[in-house]
């Protein structure tokens, strides 16, 4: 298993600002993902954070809006840029190891409210 710490756990932000969410894992992992869970909706994959290279984004998500860093195998950040109220959501970091039959471990999430 892996223990994941996310910061901040929650924040209230002003429209037009940016916020960076950090994800720290207690062990080296192959796969790191960022999900979004909008109110009343399911988890939607934003991107795969790739160590040492650019993240791989899912359809509907772009690097300019959600820049991601992953400098090593235990840490990643997601920035939500130029926020609008539609970005109010829970952002979740999840990790797994390739070939580990699909079991992902999740952080507690970062709840963002944009005013």
């Amino acid at each position, binding site marked *: 298993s892996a223990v994941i710490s996310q910061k901040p756990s929650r924040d209230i932000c002003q429209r037009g600002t940016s916020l960076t969410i950090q994800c720290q894992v207690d062990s080296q992992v192959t796969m790191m993902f960022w999900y979004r869970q909008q109110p009343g909706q399911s988890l939607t994959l934003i991107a795969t954070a790739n160590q040492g290279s650019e993240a791989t984004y899912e359809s509907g998500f772009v690097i300019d809006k959600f820049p991601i860093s992953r400098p090593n195998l235990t840490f990643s950040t997601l920035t939500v840029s130029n926020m609008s109220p539609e970005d109010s959501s829970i952002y979740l970091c999840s990790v797994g190891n390739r070939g580990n039959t699909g079991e*992902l471990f999740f952080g507690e999430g970062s709840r963002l409210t944009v005013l």
Partner: protein
Amino acid sequence: AQRVTQPEKLLSVFKGAPVELKCNYSYSGSPELFWYVQYSRQRLQLLLRHISRESIKGFTADLNKGETSFHLKKPFAQEEDSAMYYCALMRYNTDKLIFGTGTRLQVFP
């Protein structure tokens, strides 16, 4: 298109009653399916996966390719089963999970 559908947002039962949480999927390849659970104030965690054919906390789920379903079942619900349940599909060889919208299970005493 790859999709996971959970038709019920809320399922309420009394303790000791049978439970079935429905999940249907659409996927062109061979699916790998999972059930994740989130208890109150806890993080999302894996409950079971279809390839393991296991029973966890009394829950089982059988993959029915003909009906493209992966329903979660338990013969006798307990109060501690109250939680949010998500069905998920893994894209082949990617470790990426596609989640359904979730079903909240409430078990009353």
